[in-house]
Protein backbone atom coordinates (compact mmCIF):
# COMPACT_ATOMS: atom_id res chain seq x y z
CA UNK A 1 0.00 0.00 0.00
CA UNK A 2 2.74 2.41 0.95
CA UNK A 3 4.69 1.76 -2.22
CA UNK A 4 1.58 2.31 -4.31
CA UNK A 5 0.92 5.60 -2.61
CA UNK A 6 4.48 6.71 -3.22
CA UNK A 7 4.41 5.77 -6.88
CA UNK A 8 0.98 7.23 -7.35
CA UNK A 9 1.95 10.56 -5.93
CA UNK A 10 5.09 10.74 -8.03
CA UNK A 11 3.22 9.85 -11.19
CA UNK A 12 0.47 12.34 -10.49
CA UNK A 13 2.89 15.11 -9.71
CA UNK A 14 4.93 14.39 -12.82
CA UNK A 15 1.79 14.37 -14.95
CA UNK A 16 0.63 17.64 -13.51
CA UNK A 17 3.95 19.37 -14.04
CA UNK A 18 4.11 18.33 -17.66
CA UNK A 19 0.46 19.06 -18.32
CA UNK A 20 0.32 22.65 -17.21
CA UNK A 21 2.41 24.34 -19.88
CA UNK A 22 1.32 21.95 -22.61
CA UNK A 23 -2.15 23.13 -23.17
CA UNK A 24 -2.56 26.88 -23.67
CA UNK A 25 -6.35 27.07 -23.31
CA UNK A 26 -7.42 29.44 -20.53
CA UNK A 27 -10.41 27.23 -19.86
CA UNK A 28 -8.19 24.23 -19.39
CA UNK A 29 -5.96 26.16 -17.03
CA UNK A 30 -8.95 27.31 -15.03
CA UNK A 31 -10.03 23.70 -14.68
CA UNK A 32 -6.55 22.66 -13.71
CA UNK A 33 -6.41 25.36 -11.07
CA UNK A 34 -9.71 24.10 -9.67
CA UNK A 35 -8.43 20.52 -9.64
CA UNK A 36 -5.41 21.58 -7.60
CA UNK A 37 -7.56 23.82 -5.40
CA UNK A 38 -10.03 21.08 -4.58
CA UNK A 39 -7.30 18.50 -4.09
CA UNK A 40 -5.75 20.92 -1.61
CA UNK A 41 -9.08 21.46 0.17
CA UNK A 42 -9.72 17.71 0.21
CA UNK A 43 -6.38 17.01 1.89
CA UNK A 44 -7.13 19.68 4.48
CA UNK A 45 -10.56 18.21 5.19
CA UNK A 46 -9.09 14.73 5.35
CA UNK A 47 -7.00 15.59 8.40
CA UNK A 48 -10.17 16.22 10.40
CA UNK A 49 -12.73 14.08 8.57
CA UNK A 50 -10.64 11.18 7.35
CA UNK A 51 -8.01 10.83 10.05
CA UNK A 52 -9.73 12.11 13.16
CA UNK A 53 -13.14 10.84 12.12
CA UNK A 54 -14.98 14.11 12.69
CA UNK A 55 -16.90 14.51 9.43
CA UNK A 56 -17.54 18.22 9.18
CA UNK A 57 -19.80 20.25 6.92
CA UNK A 58 -18.41 23.57 8.11
CA UNK A 59 -15.30 23.77 5.96
CA UNK A 60 -16.60 26.30 3.45
CA UNK A 61 -16.65 28.73 6.38
CA UNK A 62 -12.85 28.56 6.59
CA UNK A 63 -12.53 29.09 2.84
CA UNK A 64 -14.81 32.10 3.27
CA UNK A 65 -12.90 33.51 6.24
CA UNK A 66 -9.61 33.24 4.37
CA UNK A 67 -11.07 34.77 1.23
CA UNK A 68 -12.89 37.59 2.99
CA UNK A 69 -9.99 38.49 5.28
CA UNK A 70 -7.53 38.78 2.42
CA UNK A 71 -9.98 40.56 0.13
CA UNK A 72 -10.86 43.15 2.77
CA UNK A 73 -7.24 43.77 3.75
CA UNK A 74 -6.43 44.23 0.08
CA UNK A 75 -9.32 46.61 -0.54
CA UNK A 76 -8.53 48.69 2.54
CA UNK A 77 -4.75 48.76 2.59
CA UNK A 78 -3.53 46.90 -0.49
CA UNK A 79 -1.96 44.33 1.79
CA UNK A 80 -0.30 41.58 -0.20
CA UNK A 81 -2.11 38.24 -0.04
CA UNK A 82 1.12 36.50 0.96
CA UNK A 83 0.84 38.24 4.32
CA UNK A 84 -2.93 38.54 4.59
CA UNK A 85 -3.38 34.81 4.11
CA UNK A 86 -1.71 34.28 7.46
CA UNK A 87 -4.05 36.77 9.06
CA UNK A 88 -6.85 34.80 7.43
CA UNK A 89 -5.40 31.65 8.93
CA UNK A 90 -5.44 33.31 12.33
CA UNK A 91 -9.09 34.28 11.94
CA UNK A 92 -10.05 30.81 10.72
CA UNK A 93 -8.15 29.05 13.48
CA UNK A 94 -9.82 31.24 16.10
CA UNK A 95 -13.22 30.47 14.60
CA UNK A 96 -12.32 26.78 14.47
CA UNK A 97 -11.24 26.89 18.10
CA UNK A 98 -14.53 28.51 19.04
CA UNK A 99 -16.81 26.07 17.25
CA UNK A 100 -14.59 23.13 18.09
CA UNK A 101 -14.55 23.98 21.74
CA UNK A 102 -18.32 24.43 21.80
CA UNK A 103 -19.09 21.24 19.88
CA UNK A 104 -16.48 18.94 21.41
CA UNK A 105 -16.71 20.33 24.92
CA UNK A 106 -20.39 19.51 24.95
CA UNK A 107 -19.66 16.11 23.47
CA UNK A 108 -21.41 16.52 20.13
CA UNK A 109 -20.79 13.45 18.04
CA UNK A 110 -22.08 11.80 14.92
CA UNK A 111 -25.30 13.31 13.62
CA UNK A 112 -25.23 16.13 16.11
CA UNK A 113 -21.80 17.25 14.99
CA UNK A 114 -22.89 17.25 11.32
CA UNK A 115 -25.92 19.34 12.18
CA UNK A 116 -23.96 21.75 14.35
CA UNK A 117 -21.23 22.15 11.73
CA UNK A 118 -23.73 22.92 9.01
CA UNK A 119 -25.58 25.29 11.33
CA UNK A 120 -22.38 27.26 11.93
CA UNK A 121 -21.78 27.54 8.20
CA UNK A 122 -25.32 28.62 7.43
CA UNK A 123 -25.36 31.09 10.33
CA UNK A 124 -22.16 32.61 8.98
CA UNK A 125 -23.51 32.82 5.46
CA UNK A 126 -26.70 34.53 6.59
CA UNK A 127 -24.70 36.95 8.70
CA UNK A 128 -22.32 37.82 5.85
CA UNK A 129 -25.27 38.24 3.48
CA UNK A 130 -26.68 40.88 5.80
CA UNK A 131 -23.43 42.55 6.77
CA UNK A 132 -22.66 45.66 4.74
CA UNK A 133 -19.02 45.87 5.83
CA UNK A 134 -18.26 42.68 3.93
CA UNK A 135 -20.34 43.63 0.92
CA UNK A 136 -23.56 41.89 1.93
CA UNK A 137 -25.14 39.58 -0.60
CA UNK A 138 -23.27 41.12 -3.54
CA UNK A 139 -19.89 40.30 -2.05
CA UNK A 140 -16.53 41.91 -2.71
CA UNK A 141 -14.58 42.67 -5.87
CA UNK A 142 -10.82 42.67 -5.56
CA UNK A 143 -9.68 45.84 -7.33
CA UNK A 144 -7.26 45.43 -10.22
CA UNK A 145 -3.71 46.34 -9.31
CA UNK A 146 -1.51 45.52 -12.25
CA UNK A 147 1.58 47.45 -11.08
CA UNK A 148 3.21 44.46 -9.45
CA UNK A 149 1.64 41.12 -10.39
CA UNK A 150 3.75 39.00 -8.07
CA UNK A 151 3.28 41.22 -5.04
CA UNK A 152 -0.48 41.52 -5.49
CA UNK A 153 -0.98 38.06 -6.95
CA UNK A 154 -2.81 39.49 -9.92
CA UNK A 155 -1.70 37.98 -13.18
CA UNK A 156 -2.96 38.33 -16.73
CA UNK A 157 -3.29 34.64 -17.44
CA UNK A 158 -4.23 31.73 -15.22
CA UNK A 159 -0.90 29.94 -15.55
CA UNK A 160 0.88 31.52 -12.55
CA UNK A 161 -2.09 30.71 -10.32
CA UNK A 162 -1.79 27.06 -11.29
CA UNK A 163 1.85 27.04 -10.27
CA UNK A 164 1.14 28.82 -6.98
CA UNK A 165 -1.67 26.41 -6.17
CA UNK A 166 0.55 23.49 -7.07
CA UNK A 167 3.29 24.66 -4.75
CA UNK A 168 0.80 25.06 -1.94
CA UNK A 169 -0.59 21.61 -2.61
CA UNK A 170 2.84 20.02 -2.54
CA UNK A 171 3.77 21.77 0.69
CA UNK A 172 0.46 20.77 2.20
CA UNK A 173 0.88 17.12 1.25
CA UNK A 174 4.40 17.14 2.64
CA UNK A 175 3.20 18.60 5.94
CA UNK A 176 0.13 16.37 6.12
CA UNK A 177 2.32 13.30 5.65
CA UNK A 178 4.59 14.50 8.45
CA UNK A 179 1.61 15.03 10.73
CA UNK A 180 0.06 11.68 9.93
CA UNK A 181 3.25 9.82 10.68
CA UNK A 182 3.86 11.64 13.95
CA UNK A 183 2.38 11.21 17.39
CA UNK A 184 -0.32 13.69 16.39
CA UNK A 185 -1.42 11.51 13.49
CA UNK A 186 -1.53 8.38 15.61
CA UNK A 187 -3.62 10.17 18.19
CA UNK A 188 -6.02 11.43 15.50
CA UNK A 189 -6.52 7.88 14.22
CA UNK A 190 -6.96 6.57 17.75
CA UNK A 191 -9.73 9.11 18.32
CA UNK A 192 -11.44 8.07 15.11
CA UNK A 193 -11.24 4.43 16.12
CA UNK A 194 -12.46 4.70 19.69
CA UNK A 195 -12.65 7.78 21.89
CA UNK A 196 -13.10 6.01 25.20
CA UNK A 197 -10.18 3.69 24.58
CA UNK A 198 -8.10 6.72 23.57
CA UNK A 199 -8.91 8.44 26.86
CA UNK A 200 -7.85 5.32 28.74
CA UNK A 201 -4.46 5.54 26.98
CA UNK A 202 -3.90 9.07 28.18
CA UNK A 203 -5.05 10.87 25.05
CA UNK A 204 -6.78 14.17 25.72
CA UNK A 205 -9.46 13.62 23.10
CA UNK A 206 -10.94 17.11 23.41
CA UNK A 207 -7.55 18.71 22.88
CA UNK A 208 -6.54 16.58 19.92
CA UNK A 209 -9.90 16.94 18.19
CA UNK A 210 -9.49 20.68 18.57
CA UNK A 211 -5.94 20.55 17.23
CA UNK A 212 -7.11 18.52 14.26
CA UNK A 213 -9.89 20.97 13.50
CA UNK A 214 -7.55 23.95 13.83
CA UNK A 215 -4.88 22.45 11.60
CA UNK A 216 -7.51 21.56 9.03
CA UNK A 217 -8.98 25.05 9.22
CA UNK A 218 -5.58 26.70 8.82
CA UNK A 219 -4.84 24.82 5.59
CA UNK A 220 -8.35 25.42 4.29
CA UNK A 221 -8.20 29.12 4.98
CA UNK A 222 -5.11 29.61 2.79
CA UNK A 223 -6.96 28.11 -0.16
CA UNK A 224 -9.66 30.71 0.41
CA UNK A 225 -7.13 33.51 -0.04
CA UNK A 226 -5.71 31.96 -3.20
CA UNK A 227 -9.17 31.42 -4.63
CA UNK A 228 -10.21 35.02 -3.94
CA UNK A 229 -7.22 36.34 -5.94
CA UNK A 230 -7.74 33.75 -8.64
CA UNK A 231 -11.34 34.75 -9.40
CA UNK A 232 -11.12 38.38 -8.20
CA UNK A 233 -14.66 38.28 -6.85
CA UNK A 234 -16.14 36.62 -3.79
CA UNK A 235 -19.64 36.44 -2.35
CA UNK A 236 -21.43 34.44 0.34
CA UNK A 237 -22.96 32.34 -2.41
CA UNK A 238 -19.56 31.28 -3.72
CA UNK A 239 -17.16 30.98 -0.80
CA UNK A 240 -19.60 30.29 2.03
CA UNK A 241 -21.94 27.94 0.22
CA UNK A 242 -23.02 24.55 1.42
CA UNK A 243 -22.28 23.22 -2.06
CA UNK A 244 -18.63 24.18 -1.63
CA UNK A 245 -18.52 22.21 1.61
CA UNK A 246 -20.10 19.24 -0.10
CA UNK A 247 -17.59 19.47 -2.93
CA UNK A 248 -14.73 19.45 -0.45
CA UNK A 249 -16.18 16.40 1.25
CA UNK A 250 -16.80 14.56 -1.99
CA UNK A 251 -13.23 15.13 -3.15
CA UNK A 252 -11.92 13.50 0.01
CA UNK A 253 -14.49 10.73 0.26
CA UNK A 254 -14.55 9.90 -3.45
CA UNK A 255 -10.84 9.24 -3.51
CA UNK A 256 -10.80 7.68 -0.07
CA UNK A 257 -11.00 9.40 3.30
CA UNK A 258 -8.02 9.01 5.58
CA UNK A 259 -5.50 8.49 2.78
CA UNK A 260 -4.29 12.03 1.85
CA UNK A 261 -3.68 11.02 -1.78
CA UNK A 262 -7.30 10.03 -2.22
CA UNK A 263 -8.14 13.72 -2.53
CA UNK A 264 -5.96 14.01 -5.62
CA UNK A 265 -7.96 11.27 -7.32
CA UNK A 266 -11.21 12.79 -6.08
CA UNK A 267 -10.37 16.23 -7.43
CA UNK A 268 -9.18 14.86 -10.76
CA UNK A 269 -12.54 13.17 -11.24
CA UNK A 270 -14.98 15.64 -9.72
CA UNK A 271 -13.71 18.93 -11.07
CA UNK A 272 -13.37 18.03 -14.77
CA UNK A 273 -16.65 16.17 -14.65
CA UNK A 274 -18.46 19.20 -13.27
CA UNK A 275 -16.59 21.77 -15.34
CA UNK A 276 -17.11 19.98 -18.62
CA UNK A 277 -20.77 19.24 -18.01
CA UNK A 278 -21.15 22.93 -17.36
CA UNK A 279 -19.17 23.84 -20.48
CA UNK A 280 -20.95 21.49 -22.83
CA UNK A 281 -24.43 21.50 -21.41
CA UNK A 282 -24.74 25.07 -20.24
CA UNK A 283 -24.03 26.70 -16.91
CA UNK A 284 -27.57 27.69 -16.10
CA UNK A 285 -29.07 24.25 -16.36
CA UNK A 286 -27.86 22.82 -13.05
CA UNK A 287 -26.63 19.74 -14.89
CA UNK A 288 -23.21 19.91 -13.28
CA UNK A 289 -24.82 19.59 -9.88
CA UNK A 290 -27.05 16.79 -11.11
CA UNK A 291 -23.85 15.00 -12.07
CA UNK A 292 -22.35 15.79 -8.67
CA UNK A 293 -25.42 14.54 -6.82
CA UNK A 294 -25.51 11.30 -8.80
CA UNK A 295 -21.80 10.84 -8.28
CA UNK A 296 -22.18 11.15 -4.51
CA UNK A 297 -24.91 8.54 -4.40
CA UNK A 298 -23.06 6.15 -6.71
CA UNK A 299 -19.76 6.42 -4.90
CA UNK A 300 -21.44 6.18 -1.50
CA UNK A 301 -23.17 2.95 -2.47
CA UNK A 302 -20.45 1.34 -4.57
CA UNK A 303 -17.17 2.51 -3.05
CA UNK A 304 -17.84 3.88 0.43
CA UNK A 305 -14.10 3.51 1.14
CA UNK A 306 -13.09 5.53 -1.88
CA UNK A 307 -11.51 4.88 -5.22
CA UNK A 308 -7.98 4.67 -3.87
CA UNK A 309 -8.86 1.32 -2.28
CA UNK A 310 -10.05 0.10 -5.66
CA UNK A 311 -6.79 1.20 -7.26
CA UNK A 312 -4.87 -0.54 -4.50
CA UNK A 313 -6.78 -3.74 -5.16
CA UNK A 314 -6.03 -3.54 -8.89
CA UNK A 315 -2.42 -2.79 -8.15
CA UNK A 316 -2.06 -5.80 -5.88
CA UNK A 317 -3.80 -8.04 -8.37
CA UNK A 318 -1.41 -6.89 -11.09
CA UNK A 319 1.53 -7.47 -8.83
CA UNK A 320 0.33 -10.92 -7.97
CA UNK A 321 -0.02 -11.77 -11.65
CA UNK A 322 3.46 -10.47 -12.26
CA UNK A 323 4.81 -12.32 -9.23
CA UNK A 324 3.24 -15.51 -10.49
CA UNK A 325 4.98 -15.14 -13.83
CA UNK A 326 8.31 -14.53 -12.19
CA UNK A 327 7.93 -17.70 -10.21
CA UNK A 328 7.28 -19.65 -13.36
CA UNK A 329 10.35 -18.18 -15.02
CA UNK A 330 12.67 -19.13 -12.19
Amino acid at each position, binding site marked *: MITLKKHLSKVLIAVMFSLIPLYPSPYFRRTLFLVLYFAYLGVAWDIL*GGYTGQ*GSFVHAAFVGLGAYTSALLFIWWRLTPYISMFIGVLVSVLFAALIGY*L*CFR*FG*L*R*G*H*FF*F*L*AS*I*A*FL*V*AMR*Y*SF*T*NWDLVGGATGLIIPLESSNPWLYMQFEGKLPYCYIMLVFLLIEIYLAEKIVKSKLGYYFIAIKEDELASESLGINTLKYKLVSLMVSAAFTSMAGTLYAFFVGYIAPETVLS*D*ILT*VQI*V*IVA*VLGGAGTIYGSLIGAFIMVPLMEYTRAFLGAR*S*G*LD*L*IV*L*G*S*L*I*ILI*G*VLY*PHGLIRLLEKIYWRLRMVKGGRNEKCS
Partner: protein
Amino acid sequence: MIQHLLEVFIEGILIGGIFALFTLGLNMIYGVLEIINFAHGEFIMLGMYIAYWLFVLMGLHPLLSLAIVFPLLFFAGAAFERVVIEKVIKAHIFIQTFITFGLLLLLQNLAYFFWSADYRAIRIHFPLISIGGLHVSTPRLIGFIGSIVTIIILHLFLTKTKVGTGIRAVDENPVAAELMGINVKRMRLITFGLGTGLAGVAGVFISLFYYIYPTVGFIFILLAFIIVVLGGMGSFIGSLVGGLIIGELESLSALFVGPQWKEAVAMIVFILILLFKPTGIFGMGERK
Protein backbone atom coordinates in the same frame (compact mmCIF):
# COMPACT_ATOMS: atom_id res chain seq x y z
CA MET B 1 -50.23 47.19 17.77
CA ILE B 2 -51.68 44.56 20.12
CA GLN B 3 -53.91 43.38 17.31
CA HIS B 4 -50.95 43.11 14.96
CA LEU B 5 -48.95 41.21 17.55
CA LEU B 6 -51.80 38.79 18.07
CA GLU B 7 -52.11 38.26 14.34
CA VAL B 8 -48.40 37.52 14.09
CA PHE B 9 -48.72 35.16 17.02
CA ILE B 10 -51.58 33.26 15.41
CA GLU B 11 -49.65 33.11 12.17
CA GLY B 12 -46.76 31.55 14.07
CA ILE B 13 -49.01 28.82 15.42
CA LEU B 14 -50.52 28.14 12.01
CA ILE B 15 -47.17 27.87 10.29
CA GLY B 16 -45.80 25.90 13.23
CA GLY B 17 -48.41 23.19 12.67
CA ILE B 18 -47.14 22.72 9.12
CA PHE B 19 -43.54 22.71 10.35
CA ALA B 20 -44.52 19.97 12.77
CA LEU B 21 -45.93 17.88 9.93
CA PHE B 22 -42.80 17.75 7.80
CA THR B 23 -40.58 17.45 10.83
CA LEU B 24 -42.48 14.35 11.91
CA GLY B 25 -41.56 12.77 8.59
CA LEU B 26 -37.88 13.53 9.12
CA ASN B 27 -38.01 12.37 12.71
CA MET B 28 -39.70 9.06 11.92
CA ILE B 29 -36.97 8.29 9.40
CA TYR B 30 -34.35 9.12 12.00
CA GLY B 31 -36.09 7.00 14.61
CA VAL B 32 -36.35 3.87 12.49
CA LEU B 33 -33.33 4.10 10.18
CA GLU B 34 -31.03 6.29 12.29
CA ILE B 35 -30.36 8.37 9.23
CA ILE B 36 -30.77 12.10 8.89
CA ASN B 37 -32.32 12.64 5.49
CA PHE B 38 -30.82 15.86 4.20
CA ALA B 39 -32.98 15.57 1.10
CA HIS B 40 -36.17 15.85 3.16
CA GLY B 41 -36.68 19.46 2.10
CA GLU B 42 -36.49 18.39 -1.53
CA PHE B 43 -39.51 16.16 -1.06
CA ILE B 44 -41.36 19.18 0.29
CA MET B 45 -40.22 21.03 -2.82
CA LEU B 46 -41.42 18.21 -5.07
CA GLY B 47 -44.81 18.23 -3.33
CA MET B 48 -45.05 21.97 -4.01
CA TYR B 49 -44.16 21.58 -7.68
CA ILE B 50 -46.54 18.68 -8.27
CA ALA B 51 -49.38 20.67 -6.73
CA TYR B 52 -48.37 23.65 -8.85
CA TRP B 53 -48.29 21.79 -12.16
CA LEU B 54 -51.49 19.88 -11.51
CA PHE B 55 -53.10 23.22 -10.80
CA VAL B 56 -51.65 25.05 -13.79
CA LEU B 57 -51.95 22.29 -16.37
CA MET B 58 -55.11 20.52 -15.27
CA GLY B 59 -56.79 23.04 -13.04
CA LEU B 60 -56.75 20.61 -10.13
CA HIS B 61 -57.26 22.26 -6.76
CA PRO B 62 -54.08 21.87 -4.65
CA LEU B 63 -55.95 20.15 -1.86
CA LEU B 64 -57.20 17.53 -4.31
CA SER B 65 -53.67 16.97 -5.56
CA LEU B 66 -52.88 15.50 -2.14
CA ALA B 67 -54.38 12.28 -3.42
CA ILE B 68 -51.63 12.15 -6.05
CA VAL B 69 -48.75 13.75 -4.16
CA PHE B 70 -48.78 11.44 -1.15
CA PRO B 71 -48.72 8.10 -3.00
CA LEU B 72 -46.25 9.39 -5.58
CA LEU B 73 -43.74 10.63 -3.03
CA PHE B 74 -44.36 7.62 -0.82
CA PHE B 75 -43.24 5.36 -3.66
CA ALA B 76 -40.38 7.63 -4.66
CA GLY B 77 -39.09 7.58 -1.10
CA ALA B 78 -39.64 3.84 -0.68
CA ALA B 79 -37.85 3.16 -3.97
CA PHE B 80 -34.89 5.27 -2.92
CA GLU B 81 -34.78 3.46 0.40
CA ARG B 82 -34.75 0.05 -1.26
CA VAL B 83 -32.25 0.87 -4.01
CA VAL B 84 -29.83 3.14 -2.18
CA ILE B 85 -30.33 3.49 1.57
CA GLU B 86 -30.70 -0.23 2.19
CA LYS B 87 -27.24 -0.72 0.66
CA VAL B 88 -25.60 1.60 3.16
CA ILE B 89 -27.72 0.79 6.19
CA LYS B 90 -24.62 -0.61 7.94
CA ALA B 91 -22.18 1.96 6.55
CA HIS B 92 -20.65 4.73 8.62
CA ILE B 93 -23.18 7.43 9.48
CA PHE B 94 -21.07 9.92 7.60
CA ILE B 95 -21.51 8.02 4.33
CA GLN B 96 -25.25 7.74 4.95
CA THR B 97 -25.63 11.44 5.62
CA PHE B 98 -23.48 12.22 2.66
CA ILE B 99 -25.63 10.14 0.31
CA THR B 100 -28.78 11.95 1.33
CA PHE B 101 -26.90 15.16 0.58
CA GLY B 102 -26.26 13.77 -2.89
CA LEU B 103 -29.97 13.18 -3.27
CA LEU B 104 -30.59 16.77 -2.18
CA LEU B 105 -28.32 18.08 -4.92
CA LEU B 106 -29.81 15.72 -7.48
CA LEU B 107 -33.46 16.57 -6.82
CA GLN B 108 -32.84 20.27 -6.38
CA ASN B 109 -31.04 20.56 -9.68
CA LEU B 110 -33.40 18.30 -11.55
CA ALA B 111 -36.11 20.76 -10.55
CA TYR B 112 -33.86 23.57 -11.68
CA PHE B 113 -33.14 21.83 -14.97
CA PHE B 114 -36.75 21.08 -15.83
CA TRP B 115 -38.56 24.01 -14.29
CA SER B 116 -35.89 26.78 -14.13
CA ALA B 117 -35.15 28.97 -11.14
CA ASP B 118 -38.31 31.06 -11.64
CA TYR B 119 -40.36 31.83 -8.59
CA ARG B 120 -43.83 30.43 -9.08
CA ALA B 121 -46.99 30.67 -7.05
CA ILE B 122 -50.37 29.02 -7.10
CA ARG B 123 -52.81 31.83 -7.66
CA ILE B 124 -56.04 30.89 -6.00
CA HIS B 125 -58.29 33.33 -4.32
CA PHE B 126 -59.22 32.49 -0.76
CA PRO B 127 -61.74 34.59 1.13
CA LEU B 128 -60.25 36.49 4.04
CA ILE B 129 -61.30 35.17 7.41
CA SER B 130 -61.46 37.28 10.49
CA ILE B 131 -61.96 35.90 13.94
CA GLY B 132 -62.98 38.37 16.61
CA GLY B 133 -61.58 41.26 14.57
CA LEU B 134 -58.29 39.47 13.90
CA HIS B 135 -57.36 38.82 10.29
CA VAL B 136 -56.17 35.34 9.65
CA SER B 137 -54.53 34.18 6.44
CA THR B 138 -56.95 31.62 5.02
CA PRO B 139 -54.38 29.45 3.14
CA ARG B 140 -52.30 29.19 6.30
CA LEU B 141 -55.36 28.25 8.30
CA ILE B 142 -56.20 25.56 5.74
CA GLY B 143 -52.61 24.35 5.84
CA PHE B 144 -52.67 24.25 9.63
CA ILE B 145 -55.94 22.33 9.83
CA GLY B 146 -54.78 19.98 7.08
CA SER B 147 -51.53 19.36 8.91
CA ILE B 148 -53.24 18.66 12.21
CA VAL B 149 -55.65 16.26 10.53
CA THR B 150 -52.71 14.48 8.83
CA ILE B 151 -50.84 14.28 12.11
CA ILE B 152 -53.88 12.76 13.82
CA ILE B 153 -54.25 10.20 11.02
CA LEU B 154 -50.54 9.41 11.32
CA HIS B 155 -50.87 8.95 15.04
CA LEU B 156 -53.83 6.62 14.60
CA PHE B 157 -51.87 4.69 11.99
CA LEU B 158 -48.89 4.31 14.29
CA THR B 159 -50.92 3.24 17.33
CA LYS B 160 -53.86 1.30 15.91
CA THR B 161 -52.54 -0.64 12.93
CA LYS B 162 -50.24 -3.63 12.81
CA VAL B 163 -47.73 -1.96 10.50
CA GLY B 164 -47.75 1.15 12.66
CA THR B 165 -47.03 -0.92 15.76
CA GLY B 166 -44.22 -2.63 13.86
CA ILE B 167 -42.71 0.74 12.98
CA ARG B 168 -42.86 1.84 16.60
CA ALA B 169 -41.26 -1.41 17.70
CA VAL B 170 -38.34 -0.94 15.31
CA ASP B 171 -38.04 2.66 16.44
CA GLU B 172 -37.87 1.48 20.04
CA ASN B 173 -35.44 -1.39 19.58
CA PRO B 174 -34.58 -2.83 16.16
CA VAL B 175 -32.87 -5.92 17.54
CA ALA B 176 -35.78 -6.89 19.76
CA ALA B 177 -38.22 -6.15 16.93
CA GLU B 178 -36.27 -8.45 14.64
CA LEU B 179 -36.39 -11.19 17.28
CA MET B 180 -40.13 -10.75 17.65
CA GLY B 181 -40.51 -11.60 13.98
CA ILE B 182 -41.06 -8.08 12.67
CA ASN B 183 -39.75 -7.58 9.15
CA VAL B 184 -37.39 -4.72 9.98
CA LYS B 185 -36.34 -4.19 6.39
CA ARG B 186 -39.94 -3.73 5.33
CA MET B 187 -40.56 -1.31 8.21
CA ARG B 188 -37.60 0.77 7.06
CA LEU B 189 -39.05 0.88 3.56
CA ILE B 190 -42.49 1.93 4.75
CA THR B 191 -41.11 4.49 7.20
CA PHE B 192 -38.94 6.15 4.59
CA GLY B 193 -41.88 6.25 2.19
CA LEU B 194 -44.14 7.67 4.90
CA GLY B 195 -41.55 10.30 5.76
CA THR B 196 -41.15 11.52 2.21
CA GLY B 197 -44.90 11.25 1.61
CA LEU B 198 -45.58 13.46 4.62
CA ALA B 199 -42.99 15.94 3.36
CA GLY B 200 -44.92 16.05 0.08
CA VAL B 201 -48.21 16.63 1.87
CA ALA B 202 -46.64 19.47 3.85
CA GLY B 203 -45.31 20.83 0.56
CA VAL B 204 -48.82 20.96 -0.88
CA PHE B 205 -50.04 22.92 2.14
CA ILE B 206 -47.09 25.29 1.94
CA SER B 207 -47.67 25.83 -1.78
CA LEU B 208 -50.97 27.49 -0.89
CA PHE B 209 -49.17 30.57 0.38
CA TYR B 210 -45.47 30.33 -0.46
CA TYR B 211 -43.32 30.81 -3.53
CA ILE B 212 -42.20 27.68 -5.31
CA TYR B 213 -38.61 27.45 -6.56
CA PRO B 214 -35.97 24.71 -6.77
CA THR B 215 -33.99 25.56 -3.63
CA VAL B 216 -37.01 26.25 -1.43
CA GLY B 217 -36.51 22.95 0.41
CA PHE B 218 -33.30 24.11 2.05
CA ILE B 219 -35.13 26.61 4.26
CA PHE B 220 -37.49 23.91 5.46
CA ILE B 221 -34.85 21.27 6.06
CA LEU B 222 -32.94 23.69 8.28
CA LEU B 223 -36.11 24.43 10.19
CA ALA B 224 -36.84 20.72 10.47
CA PHE B 225 -33.35 20.12 11.89
CA ILE B 226 -33.89 22.78 14.49
CA ILE B 227 -37.28 21.40 15.44
CA VAL B 228 -36.06 17.80 15.60
CA VAL B 229 -33.19 18.72 17.86
CA LEU B 230 -35.32 21.05 19.96
CA GLY B 231 -38.14 18.55 20.40
CA GLY B 232 -35.79 15.60 20.71
CA MET B 233 -34.60 13.15 18.12
CA GLY B 234 -37.12 10.38 17.81
CA SER B 235 -39.88 12.09 19.79
CA PHE B 236 -43.33 12.41 18.18
CA ILE B 237 -44.71 14.89 20.69
CA GLY B 238 -41.39 16.74 20.60
CA SER B 239 -41.71 17.43 16.88
CA LEU B 240 -45.21 18.71 17.43
CA VAL B 241 -44.32 21.10 20.25
CA GLY B 242 -41.00 22.01 18.61
CA GLY B 243 -42.80 22.86 15.38
CA LEU B 244 -45.11 25.27 17.17
CA ILE B 245 -42.24 26.89 19.08
CA ILE B 246 -40.12 27.40 15.98
CA GLY B 247 -43.14 28.65 14.04
CA GLU B 248 -43.58 31.27 16.74
CA LEU B 249 -39.88 32.09 16.78
CA GLU B 250 -39.89 32.57 13.02
CA SER B 251 -42.83 34.93 12.89
CA LEU B 252 -41.90 36.87 16.03
CA SER B 253 -38.26 37.30 15.02
CA ALA B 254 -39.40 38.48 11.58
CA LEU B 255 -41.45 41.09 13.39
CA PHE B 256 -38.88 42.20 15.95
CA VAL B 257 -35.46 41.69 14.34
CA GLY B 258 -36.43 42.02 10.71
CA PRO B 259 -37.29 39.34 8.19
CA GLN B 260 -33.80 39.24 6.64
CA TRP B 261 -32.33 38.18 9.99
CA LYS B 262 -34.84 35.53 10.90
CA GLU B 263 -32.78 32.68 9.42
CA ALA B 264 -29.65 33.82 11.24
CA VAL B 265 -31.65 34.03 14.49
CA ALA B 266 -32.98 30.53 13.90
CA MET B 267 -29.45 29.22 13.32
CA ILE B 268 -28.13 30.79 16.50
CA VAL B 269 -31.01 29.35 18.48
CA PHE B 270 -30.23 26.01 16.84
CA ILE B 271 -26.58 26.11 17.86
CA LEU B 272 -27.56 27.04 21.41
CA ILE B 273 -29.96 24.10 21.61
CA LEU B 274 -27.34 21.75 20.18
CA LEU B 275 -24.86 22.85 22.78
CA PHE B 276 -26.98 23.00 25.87
CA LYS B 277 -29.76 20.50 25.32
CA PRO B 278 -28.80 18.25 22.41
CA THR B 279 -31.23 15.63 23.63
CA GLY B 280 -34.11 18.06 23.23
CA ILE B 281 -37.10 18.65 25.42
CA PHE B 282 -38.61 15.20 24.96
CA GLY B 283 -35.71 13.37 23.40
CA MET B 284 -33.76 10.32 24.27
CA GLY B 285 -30.73 11.53 22.39
CA GLU B 286 -28.35 9.72 20.11
CA ARG B 287 -28.43 6.00 20.57
CA LYS B 288 -25.45 3.64 20.63
